[in-house]
């Protein structure tokens, strides 16, 4: 049976979105999609080395570099989701009342309440660091004290946050599908800086002869088509829509040389 290999991030996979989309695509085209869920960095590396046919990640800077270097040939916006800040129910830093994410971070740093960072250079981690830089707090100096870098995926980071009754920042999808919550609860959401754009990139078939370019393009096209976009919008977890389709324009393209 024909299949393509898609490398993506664990947070995307954890949400269940791909499990929802792939059968629909397979139904239509007969092509299966095999998902390798890894960190952003390694997802791109898999594409670079020709081990995946297509890449679905969410860190625009890295994605553009990927295209520039000729590893990928076509990047399309697909959708966005958003990040939320979660923490212990008691909310010792009182971030529930504030309106800006940076403000929330500032309050956390003020009382030096435990905060778990992904600490793995992932898209999520970079976004978190951006927010810290907005607060003016030099967060590195607290590393190993109340600011803890887990160097782990989103799920593992949430597990640790739960275990330590700490704050952390998570993508909404992982948070909603995450079960080991105990005292952990959602405390802050819906601030535009927390939005998170996803892009899909075709791996350059010129670099690797075996790449299933045609089938991969079918998937990319389907995902950005009206049908695919609708499917993304239809996907809900616990009654909430997680991903918001926005595939209206192409960000960067490069024809195969």
């Amino acid at each position, binding site marked *: 049976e024909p299949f393509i290999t898609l490398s993506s991030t664990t947070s995307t996979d*954890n949400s269940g979105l791909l499990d929802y989309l792939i059968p629909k695509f397979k139904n239509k085209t007969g092509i299966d999609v095999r*998902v*390798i869920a890894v960190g952003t960095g390694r997802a791109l590396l898999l594409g670079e*080395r*020709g*081990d995946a046919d297509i890449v679905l990640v969410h860190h625009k800077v890295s994605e553009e570099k990927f295209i520039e270097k000729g590893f990928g040939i076509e990047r399309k916006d697909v959708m966005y989701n958003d990040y939320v800040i979660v923490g212990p129910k008691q909310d010792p830093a009182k971030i529930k009342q504030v309106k800006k994410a940076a403000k929330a971070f500032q309050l956390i740093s003020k009382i030096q309440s435990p905060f778990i960072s992904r600490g793995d250079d992932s898209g999520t981690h970079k976004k978190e660091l951006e927010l810290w830089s907005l607060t003016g707090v030099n967060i590195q100096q607290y590393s190993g004290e109340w600011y803890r870098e887990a160097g782990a995926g989103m799920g593992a980071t949430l597990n640790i946050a739960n275990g330590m009754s700490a704050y952390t920042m998570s993508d909404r999808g992982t948070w909603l599908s995450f079960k*080991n919550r105990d005292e952990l609860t959602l405390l802050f959401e819906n601030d535009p800086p927390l939005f998170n754009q996803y892009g899909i990139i075709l791996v350059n078939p010129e670099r*690797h002869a075996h790449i299933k370019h045609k089938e991969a393009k079918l998937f990319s096209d389907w995902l950005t088509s009206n049908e695919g976009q609708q499917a993304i919008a239809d996907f809900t977890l616990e009654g909430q829509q997680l991903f918001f389709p926005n595939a209206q324009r192409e960000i960067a393209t490069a024809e195969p040389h």
Partner: protein
Amino acid sequence: MNDFSHAFSKALQLIIQLDPALLEIIGLSLRVSITAVLIASIIGLPLGAALALYKFYGRGIIVALLNAFMGLPPVVVGLVVYLILSRSGPLGVLGLLFTPTAMIIAQVCLITPIVAALTRQTILDANDEYHEQLRALGAKASRMMKTLLWETRFSLMTGVFAGFGRAIAEVGAVLIVGGNINHATRVMTTAIALETRKGDIELALALGIILITISLIVTSLVMSARHAAYQYHS
């Protein structure tokens, strides 16, 4: 302790339901690890015996390497096998990455040192007793090796169990070279890691209980076979 009783009932429930997805994962786990342990034994038993019996320059270094390689980190083994099998790697053309074959290769690398090092020690101990006698009877080194492997076969099994245990339990290597692809390369350990990531600790534990039960069944079956054979031969 509530967590544990929940996990147990969940495990029971999964088993009773005979969930086909679960059966598929269990089947692949067993197929990969049993194949790996067979290949590792085919390499490791004679290798360990040879290191016990043959004296040659550099043997000490190889033995030290073998003992240290019992501590090969699965992730590192996974990475190395990945680089070799990756499309850009030397064996990329074979297209083995993200297949059960790749997982078997990685596990063989992980457990061959274990089987070999433990075999070496067992043969070394037996050799103390047998060496002179077999030599005096006229056995050449290669024959002596075979004889000692046969005479100690019941003891060697424990080393093979250790290898099987390592294989069926490890997740780092199979995750990297297999990719934990649903319906293709998902095995028990990668499924457990996945559920853990999702925070579904109950399901992860239930799967863990099932995995341990399977190990227990496999080991018990082999042990009873060994016991029966041992009774028969003495």
